[in-house]
């Protein structure tokens, strides 16, 4: 009966990886650099929810909505105050990555300062066995996570393909200079991408914190899983992202079952490094690695 439980766990984990990879790739897609601050954004989402729901004693749905909005604003602030200033001066993408590492350290430590480094629980309901499906167990939070993640993933894809703003984001992604020539305000579009990406990240952070619990650094690992999924899947590829999240989740749970849970992280990065070397374009084969001219 174990096998079905593992399958269910893989399904659950992959849905949360998918959501994080979507939230990260919408930003990566439009700016082409690794926005490491996203890790602090994921964490901030969960901690804002904690702040509103427990410290201010607001009802949970309202607290979650407020947390998502605040986190989204936080993400947009990082773009306006830092990255936009840098974009005026034409830096290499490497400079953005290092800046975002510094900004991540700042935000993560502010969260540590305010909330403390101890483990926090973001779940008011009693711990129950969960629902039984064919002999395997899944909790309510996990079921909600799966549905919300898949729904948001589909919604994001539809938005990028059919909404006017979504189309503009894809236009900025394919050629920023040409967008400026055609009168698309690229700064505004990138700002919107940061807003949407950060909101999705906040939701992923809240769901993941509700499933297990949270510390001020828990976003970093989640983000790195998301980055691994994105690189494995290839940028801008729907099927690639789904396949990537399934591969990462499967590798983690199978290694946890057959070897030991403690090697899960190492296995994930071994997969990432093998992909970066032998298949740098990901499953989809779309361009990811910079071509040296």
């Amino acid at each position, binding site marked *: 009966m174990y096998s079905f439980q593992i399958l269910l766990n893989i399904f659950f984990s992959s849905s949360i990886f998918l959501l994080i990879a979507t939230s990260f790739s919408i930003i990566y897609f439009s700016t082409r650099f*690794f926005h490491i601050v996203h890790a602090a954004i994921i964490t901030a989402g969960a901690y804002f929810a904690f702040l509103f729901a427990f410290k201010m004693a607001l009802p949970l749905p309202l607290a979650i909505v407020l947390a998502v909005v605040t986190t989204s604003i936080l993400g947009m602030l990082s773009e306006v105050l*830092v990255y936009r200033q840098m974009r005026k001066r034409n830096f290499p993408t490497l400079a953005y990555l290092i*800046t975002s590492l*510094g900004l*991540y*350290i700042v935000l993560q430590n502010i969260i540590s300062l305010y909330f403390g480094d101890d483990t926090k629980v973001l779940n008011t309901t009693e711990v129950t066995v969960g629902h039984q499906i064919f002999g395997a167990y899944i909790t309510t939070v996990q079921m909600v996570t799966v549905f919300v993640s898949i729904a948001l993933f589909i919604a994001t894809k539809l938005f990028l393909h059919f909404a006017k703003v979504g189309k503009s984001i894809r236009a900025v992604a394919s050629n920023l200079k040409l967008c400026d020539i055609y009168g698309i305000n690229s700064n505004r579009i990138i700002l919107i991408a940061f807003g949407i990406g950060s909101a999705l990240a906040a939701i992923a952070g809240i769901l993941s914190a509700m499933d297990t619990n949270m510390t001020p650094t828990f976003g970093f690992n989640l983000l790195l899983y998301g980055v691994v999924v994105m690189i494995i899947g290839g940028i801008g590829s729907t099927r690639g992202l789904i396949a990537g999240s399934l591969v990462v989740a499967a590798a983690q749970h199978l290694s946890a079952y057959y070897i030991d849970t403690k090697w899960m992280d*190492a296995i994930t*990065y*071994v997969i990432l490094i093998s992909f*970066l070397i032998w298949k740098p374009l990901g499953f989809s084969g779309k361009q990811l690695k910079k071509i040296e001219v």
Partner: protein
Amino acid sequence: MEYILHLFILICFYTLLSQSLNLSAGFTGLISLAHAGFYGVGAYTTAILATQFGFSFWLNLPIAMSISGVIALIVSLIALRTVDDYFIICTLGIQVILFSIMNNWMDLTRGPLGIPSIPSISFFGLVIDSKITFLLLSLFMVMFVWFVLSNISKSGFGKTLQAISEDEIYSQSIGKNVYKSKIISFVISAILAAIPGALYAHYISYIDPTSFTVNESIFILSIVIIGGLRSLKGSFFASAFLVLLPEALRFVGMPDSIAANMRQIIYGLILVLVMMTGKNGVKDFFAVIWKKVN
């Protein structure tokens, strides 16, 4: 007094770490987030050899350096097939794997329990267990590494590395072996990072994996960037500044629990500001501000 000596020893360690990273990150342009991993490899090799086999420091040091070098060679053969951002992500992965080995391979490293009771260094029968003698030893190592690195940077090979960081394709076109030079600089960097690792293990006499995390790697990289790429002197001053900063915070009456976070917030902010202005290190950053004020 003992405490001040301890701080000086820490400055020596971080000078060694940041200067060695400066060779690959500054001169060659290979920004690596795996440096704390190599630091850890040095520390763990020394600790295991010293406690399990009773080897002396003078034997442990070259062995630690070679093991770190071999790992760096294998890693760089793989990682250097990627460029720029992907190279950083790749080294981040390597850092996580190295940390994972230190944290999880119970039989070898005792995992989170750490390795206790590592003996002090002895030098021709003279046991270096006081802070002042250890500081002298560390200073000697700093001077040795500084001398080696400044000679490398002035040599023809150092100029090749700088050329690679400026324009890879051009360097290749004038017949420089880019791939090989990158590997050599990455490996030398890792070999030198094992020196502070070995010193640290004998100095603290107890090591555990929490000293060699991703955050430590980011910290070392920040020292290099704040001090200025390609500036060995800058790395030294930045190490001194960032080690003494929490003490200064304590001096103005900030409690310890906040000071640790405040230190990280401050160096994070400095890193962001230095990068945003596009200047090489804090020195240039202040020069720009000075010009604006006048």
